């Protein structure tokens, strides 16, 4: 009889270990995903000063708009962790960038500048990369939160202090518009 108890106990302990480990792995994946997002966000921060310098030469009168960009950039950079605050700041930064590119339509010389064109392409690509890394991050968050909130992980999570993470939402108006427009009808 005591043998069976030992076996059962052994199985329970092994299960706890396996569950704990899978929670640790899930949490690490979330961190990996977050670091990917931050890498892409940083890419954007690094491109912006160059953009500002290029524009200053051609569009001296747009000082206000340029300053808005600089401001939005530094407030986004100051928020460390991914969350509601960060996504609000990043959305703001995206909006200011959009208004700059809209403005540039009034300055044909600027539009012809190769540097400017390249930066525009790089920034568009960076937006796409930010969205891509965000999707991956959110999928890792979903996996972790699901493990934490479902049975039996929910016990291990409470005991060892695993907390659910927040999704990182960013407005993606271009992509949403493209998805919703009916391109093919079945």
């Amino acid at each position: 009889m005591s043998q069976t108890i030992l076996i059962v106990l052994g199985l329970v302990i092994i299960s706890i270990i396996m569950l704990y480990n899978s929670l640790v792995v899930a949490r690490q994946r979330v961190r990996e995903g977050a670091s990917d997002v931050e890498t892409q966000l940083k890419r954007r921060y690094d491109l912006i000063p160059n953009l500002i310098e290029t524009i200053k030469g051609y569009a001296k009168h747009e000082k206000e708009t340029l300053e808005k960009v600089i401001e939005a950039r530094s407030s986004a950079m100051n928020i460390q962790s991914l969350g509601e605050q960060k996504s609000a700041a990043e959305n703001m930064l995206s909006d200011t960038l959009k208004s700059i590119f809209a403005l540039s339509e009034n300055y044909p010389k600027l539009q012809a500048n190769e540097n400017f064109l390249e930066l525009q392409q790089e920034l568009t690509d960076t937006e796409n990369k930010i969205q891509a890394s965000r999707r991956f991050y959110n999928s890792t968050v979903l996996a972790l939160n699901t493990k934490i909130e479902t049975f039996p992980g929910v016990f291990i999570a409470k005991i060892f202090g695993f907390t659910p993470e927040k999704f990182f939402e960013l407005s993606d108006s271009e992509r949403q518009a493209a998805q919703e427009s009916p391109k093919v009808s079945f």
Partner: protein
Amino acid sequence: MLTIYDHIASNNRKTFLLLLLFPLVLCFIVIIAMVIAFYIIADTQFVYDYLYPYAHIIQNLNIEITEKNIYFWTAIAYVLNMLPWVFGGGLLWMFISWNFGDKMILWGAEARPLELKDNPQIYRLVENVAIAAGLPRPNLYIINDNSLNAFATGRNPKHASVTLTTGIINKLEPLELEGVIAHEIAHIGNRDIRLNMLIITGLSVFGFFADALRIRMRHLNNNKDSSKLFIIYLAIFIALVLFNSLIAPLIQLAISRRREYAADATGALITRNPKALASALQKISEDARVEILDKQKNISTACIADPRDIKSAFSSAFSTHPPIEDRIKRLLQMSRE
């Protein structure tokens, strides 16, 4: 909800099982075939002579040979003797396929690499899908063909490539192409390619043995025992051919169909846009024929749609891809949730 990691775990389990089962099944088949052959020959002296060179193996096992079990143990002794060759040959084969398989496939398909400067839009598209999948960026190749198709090769995400036809690049919208690329990257991430390559090489080892036997049968000397040897070889040969034509395709079919659905689902998870892949599949289904891939049966299983023509696809008795209408239906269901 299955994540990419669950697919990997499931494929790893299948890979391990396959690696274990293939040589075991081969030995099993040979043993049964030999025992049947021995019964047909019905000459115990002959079998005893046949056993003689391998008798030491039986002695080490401390088995007592009687009239009843001599057939069985002779077959086993023979197989045990061949085992190092089977494993060695199989491992060598798999090593070659593992390391050079994707290069051979790309060379055979006349694919040329695509750099950032050749087509920045497509290059960046692939790069971004890889980011969304959490995988390293795969190498990108192009095939000159007007039809719409794509495939992925590579034994692991670090050594992977995605190949697109010029047709699919020109004829699909960016979001649809993104869905296709996500499907291919899903194959890479789920480790489907690795599983597929192992299956193909594992099965071809069976074919290799059948061929070797056929040659051996032709070169038998004309002495009194040659007819009996012939029966043995023939029995094994028939068993191998039966396996290769009946059971092996079923194994391949069962695995590859499920993997196609899984790649569709994982791809949709990566892009969060199953509708785009559905409409891409619709366009692809109208023109997926890529002639240069006709000779390469293994690659057709990794393509997004069967590149062979209808006749050959049916004549192989089983299609490697699930029907496109069903795939489209499943994707559209996902987008309604």
